[in-house]
C-alpha cells in the first residue's frame, strides 16, 4: 500500500506492506534510527514517538495506521541547530547512560512540558512510567525534565 506520513515536518511517501510496524517504517524506510525498539509487547517504551503530537509506542502502531498523520521522532527535536530544552536538560543532568531509552524519554518529556510547563516530581514519574530505563534508576531523568522546565 502507498502511505504518506509526515515525519519531522516533511512528507514521505512509500509503498509498504500493511503489516509494517511504524518503528520499522521510521528506521528502515527513512533511516531514522534514533527511534529504537526493545520489546515486542509495548512494555519498554524505547520506541516512543509522537503521533499527531501525542507519544505512542511505535512498535504497536502499523505504518498504514499513520498514513496521513504526523510523526515526530528524536531527530525532529532540534530546530535550526538549537537543541530542545529537554535535550539540554538531559545533557546537563546526566539523564542518560547507554542512551537507548533516551529518544523515547525525550519525546514524552517534551509532550509533558507542553501540557504542564512545571510538573512536580510525582507528575514526571507518572508520565515516564511506561518507559523503562535500565541505567539511571530514573533519578536523573526526573531531574533532567525538571531542569528542562527551567530552560
Amino acid at each position, binding site marked *: 500500500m502507498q502511505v504518506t506520513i509526515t515525519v519531522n515536518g516533511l512528507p514521505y511517501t512509500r509503498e509498504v*506492506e500493511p*503489516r*509494517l510496524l511504524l518503528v*520499522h517504517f521510521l*528506521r528502515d524506510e527513512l*533511516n*531514522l*534510527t*534514533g*527511534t*529504537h*525498539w*526493545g*520489546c*515486542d*509487547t509495548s*512494555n*519498554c517504551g*524505547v520506541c516512543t514517538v509522537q503521533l499527531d503530537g501525542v507519544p505512542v509506542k511505535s512498535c504497536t502502531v502499523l505504518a498504514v495506521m499513520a498514513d496521513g498523520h504526523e510523526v515526530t*521522532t*528524536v*531527530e525532529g*527535536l*532540534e530546530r535550526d541547530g538549537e*537543541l530542545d530544552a529537554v*535535550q539540554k536538560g*538531559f*545533557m*546537563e543532568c*546526566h539523564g*542518560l*547512560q*547507554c*542512551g*537507548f*531509552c*533516551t*529518544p523515547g524519554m*525525550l519525546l514524552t518529556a517534551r509532550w509533558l512540558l507542553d501540557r504542564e510547563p512545571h510538573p512536580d*516530581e510525582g507528575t*514526571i*514519574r*507518572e508520565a*515516564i*512510567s*511506561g*518507559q*523503562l*530505563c*535500565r*541505567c*539511571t*534508576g*530514573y*533519578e*536523573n*531523568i*526526573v531531574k533532567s525534565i525538571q531542569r528542562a522546565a527551567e530552560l
Partner: protein
Amino acid sequence: MSFGRMHRKEDARFIRGRGNYVDDVRLPGMLHGAILRSPHAHARILSIDTSAAEAHPKVRAVITGQTLAGLNLAWMPTLSNDVQAVLATDKVRFQGQEVAFVVAEDAYSARDALELIEVDYEPLDAVVDARRALDEDSPVIRDDLEGRTSNRIFDWEAGDRERTDAIFAGAEVTINQDMIYPRVHPAPLETCGAVADFDKVTGKLTVWCPTQAPHAHRTLYALVAGLPEHKIRVISPDIGGGFGGKVGIYPGYVCAIVGSIVTGRPVKWMEDRSENLMATAFARDYHMSGEVAATRDGVIQAIRVKVLADHGAFNGTAQPTKFPAGFFHVFTGSYDLQAAHCEVTGVYTNKAPGGVAYACSFRVTEAVYLVERLIDVLAAELGLDPAELRLRNLLKPDQFPYTSPTGWEYDSGDYIKTMRMAMDIAGYDKLRAEQADKRARGELMGIGISFFTEAVGAGPRKHMDILGLGMADGAELRVHPTGKAVLRVSCQSQGQGHETTFAQIVGHELGIPADDVEVVHGDTDQTPFGLGTYGSRSTPVSGAATAIVARKVRERARLVAAAMLECSPDDLDWQIDESAEGRAGSWAVRGDPASRKSMQEIALAAHSALELPDGVEGHLDAVTVYNPPNLTYPFGAYICVVDVDPGTGQVKVRRFVAVDDCGVRINPMIVEGQIHGGLADGVGMALMQVMAFDEEGNHLGASFMDYLLPTSMECPSWELGETVTPSPHHPLGAKGVGESATVGSPPAVVNAVVDALAPYGIRHADMPLTPANVWRVIQGDPFRTDLAIP
C-alpha cells in the same frame, strides 16, 4: 577540568538520536537472519524438514545443526571450558534453544520462513528444579559428553573446613537459613544481535556486535571458526546496556557469521525480547544454605555455607577459570571472622546457560546477599539491632590490608565511618522510633541495612584468566603535534561514559583539557588487547592502564622539555596550574618556574626538527599493559525503608540511603549515575524480577509482560552519601563502582521487608517479594519463587 563533574561527551550524539547501535548498522546487500527455537525444554530431535522454508522466494539459506556439523561448527566452546550447541543436532536442552537459522532478503520474510520449518521432537522429561538435578532417576541432560552419568558439573570448596567446624562445635549461638537467589536476567533494553560480513576475496571477517569484550570475542571466533585472528575484526558499536549479558558469544553470532560465509553477503541477526530472556545469559540461580556461629553478645566467629548452583544446560558461566563459583567465596563480607568454609555444587538443568551476568562481580552479589541476610537472622536471634550487630563486627581501619578467611586481600577500608554516615543520613534512631509507633498501631514499616564489600577489577594474571586469556588490559596513547591526544583502550562502554572519564584521566595526567582527548574503543583493529568491560573492571584495570600510559607520555615529554630548556631532565618539576579554563600542565625548571614548557609546546617540539639527545625518541606516543597487582575492594552501607500493606502484601520502598566508597571518583556525576542504576536493580530483584519455570521447563518470564523491571514509580528518589578511601595499589586510588549498588542493594530491600514482617515472627522471605509472596509469607505458607506458583 580533570577529575570532577564533567558533562558527558557521548551525550551529544545520543540526545539527537545519532547513536550507532548494532541494529543501526546497514550494509549494501545485507541479508537478515532469524532463529528457530525449541518449544521444548528437553526433547530428542527426530527430524528437521527445511524444504518449505528453502522454497520461500525470499529465503537465501537455511542452516541447521547438520549443516554446521559439516563445517565442524555445531558446537562451540563456552567460557567455562564446556561446549554449547550452536544449533542443536541431537537434543534440545532448554526451551528457546537454537535449532535452525534462516537467512532471507528482509527481516519479516526471515520470520515468516521460520513457520515453514517442521521439526519432529520426541519430548523427554525435563530437569527443572535444581534440587532434583542430582536425583538418581533424573534424566542425564548432557549425554553428548562422553562418560557422563549425572547432572553434576563440579564440586568446589573454599576456606578451612576443620577450623570452621571446630568453631561451630563450640559456639554459644548458631543460626542457619536457607535462601534462594532466584534466576534473573540483566535484560538490557537493547537485545543482542550481530552483523557479520565475510569478504571472500580478502578472507576478512568483520563482525559488528554489542559485545562487552571485543578482543575476547575476536580470539574466540578465531578458535571457533578456525579463521586466522588477524583476519577478524570485531566492532562493538554503541551498546544499549550490557550489565554482563553481553560478555559471552551466543549461537546467533556464530550463525550470522556462517550465514555470511555461506551466502557471500553481510547478514544481520537481531534477537527479539523473548529470545533475549529465554536464551541469553541469565544470572544467579543460587540455592544457598548458610550458618553463622557467634557469641551471645554478638561477636560473629564463623560462617559455613552450602550452595547448589543451577548452571542450566551448558556450563557457560563467564568467570576467571580457577573459580567455578566466581568470587562467591568472598562471602565473609565486611566482617572480622575467625574462619569460614563453603561448598558449591554446580548442576545442569534444562534451562538456558549463563549464571555470571547482571552486574554480579562474578557472584559477589550472591555472597553479599547471603551474608547480609544471615547477619539479620542472627540479629533477630540475639535480639540485637541489626545496625548495632554490624557495627560490632565490621572490620576496623587498622586491619587493612586484611586477609579474609577464604584468602582475599582487602586493599583498604574505613567501614564504620561509612556505616555511621548512612545511619546519619537516614536518621536511623528516628526511623526506629517511628517504626515502634507504627507497630503499636498495627502498621508494617521496615528498615533494612546492607553493608557490602565488593571485589572488582579482575584481575592479577597469575590468578585470573578466561579460557587462558590473562586479564590484563592494554592502553595506547598518541599525542598529536598540537597537543591533542587519542587514547585507545580495550574496554567497552555500555553506558558507563568511558569517552568522558578516560579522557579526564588523560587530561589529569597530561595537564591538557579532557576535551582535547579522544577515546577510541570498541574496534579490535584500532585498539590494544584487553578483556573488556564487566566485573566493574574498566576503571580498576583499563583506567589504571590509561593513567600509566599517560605517565609514560609525561616522562617522554620531560626528556623533550629538557632538550627544549637545555637542562637536565632531573632538574624539571611537573607543574599543574588550575584555572577557570582548566588544568594546564608543564615541565618547569626547578627553582625557576617561569622557565617551563607546556604539554602543547612539548608535543609540537617532539614532532619538530628539534635536536633530541641521544636515546630520546621523537614523538610522545606510548603503549602499556596493566596487570593489576590485586583486586580493588569498594564498599558501602545501604539503608532501605519500606512500608508493607498487611492486607495485600504490597511493598512500597519509601526511602533508600546509599553511602558508597569506591575510592577516588574521577567523575562523581557518572559514579552517582552508576549507583542510581544499581539501586533500581536492587529494588527490581528484591520485589519483582524473576524467571521461574513450570514442571515441563516452560519459561514463565519470557517477555516484559512477565519479567517485570522496575519503573519510575517503584523507585524512590535515591539519597546518596560518599566516603573516599583510596585504593593503595591503583595508580589513581580508584576502585570501580559499576556493580556496587546492584550487589549491595537487594539485601537492604529484603532485610527491610523482613524487618517489617517481624511482628509475625518472620526471619526470612525469598526474592522476589511480590504482593502474593509477602502475603503467603505472612500466612506462614511461602511458595518456591523459582517454580510455577501452584
